[in-house]
């Protein structure tokens, strides 16, 4: 079964930051374009860690700034 990670992650982020899915571009920067604050950023990370049962090392978190990066990161971890 193919999982559309990007769509799943978009829905998750949309719920957390209260922005409709259709307005969430995969490349939009959470902080610059989507007005995400630090608490919401932690919530996003925690939500997809929980959903995919993965742990993102803390030093990697600042490098994840948009949905595309989360998707890629998740895919890679799942491959491993």
């Amino acid at each position: 079964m193919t999982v559309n990670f990007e769509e799943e992650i978009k829905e998750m982020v949309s719920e957390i930051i209260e922005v409709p899915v259709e307005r969430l571009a995969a490349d939009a920067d959470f902080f610059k374009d989507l007005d995400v604050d630090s608490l919401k950023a932690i919530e996003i990370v925690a939500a997809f860690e929980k959903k995919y049962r993965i742990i993102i090392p803390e030093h990697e978190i600042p490098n994840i700034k948009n949905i595309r990066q989360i998707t890629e990161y998740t895919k890679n971890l799942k491959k491993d």
Partner: protein
Amino acid sequence: MRERRIVITGLGVIAPNGIGKEAFWDALKEGRSGIRPVKRFDTGGFKCKLAGEIEGFMPERFLGAKGLRNLDRSSRLLCSAAKLAIDDAGLKIDDGNTDDIGVCTGTTLSSLWSIAEFDKEIIEEGPLFTNAALFPGTVINAASSQVSIFFNIQGFNTTVSTGYSSSLDALKYAVDFIRMGRIKAVLVGGVESLSLANFTGFNSLGFFSGTSGEALSCPFDKRRDGIILGEGAAVAVIEDEEYAHNRKARVYGEIKGMCSSFDAFKIGRYNPVAEGLKKSMKKALMNSGLDISEIDHISASANSVPDQDRLESEAIKGVFGRLGYNIPVSSIKSMIGETFSAGGLMQVAASAGSIAHNFVPPTINYKFRDDDCDFDCVENKFRISRINNVLVNNFGPGGGSASVVISKYH
């Protein structure tokens, strides 16, 4: 130097029997109860299945839909009441005056739901997969802080957590802050929300009515056997008179005198002679500069607990002597239940209504007279009466007690 006068200029109420001050006042006048079977959680395991639960509360009506996601019920209630109070006071908050305005909230159990949810998630999901967004709500000052965040209020933000008397203690703190000249206006609030955790707690301690008969909030009545728990939020905007005058604010009343005291006896037991409550009443009256004969109504803390109502009766008779038999004394807890830390501010909001519309709310569910509470309990029906000065009492078994005199503004 003449002491600063402190006035009430705005009110916001979200109560089990009315949302908004007018609806709340109408309900009190009509003796309408907000006590009903609990819907929010299953009460199957409890003998008492009733609470003062707020129905039809839609926070998005007051706060907009965005930003509510991570606010627990207590924060939603308090922020909504704050919005109503700010609008009612016509208070415009901007960069020019934000440092002149503060927030002070009385609450004790408002974060219990968040604590329980956070704990549950740690146990169910494991510490590595716990929702971090639940954590900020677990602190006791969460609801009060959300008010400052929502409305950009930067003067100060304090939470007073002293059990039953919390919101009157918060009022005292705010009054003192204004009197010291450190702030011009304060949003004083009280909030508690109903959750399975606090319902279980009060039930386990044996505080609930209905353990051996009908569950009923009937203050001063012979049948009283415990509380019915309630929830709600009340916010009052209080200001330095001059500040209110300069911005041409409408004034509901003046806070004439206040006192808080503490007379802890044993854990969970009342001081057997209500020493603290008597002291609070006496000092509040003394500070008001009024003669006891000038008090037109007492808003009682009586909550249908046998000892609480008897002790308040004794305290009233002790302080007022024979006059105590002539003053109408009523308990709005007969209609909204015991809202715990929010109760004092609920009574203040009710009393502002009494002064504005010249009525005394009734003590409903009153049927059988108790000789220990043999004064004018305003049985079941409101009374039209000219109200210039109200004494509001609040106390409980924890030792905290507070009284405030609210007067018509001249």
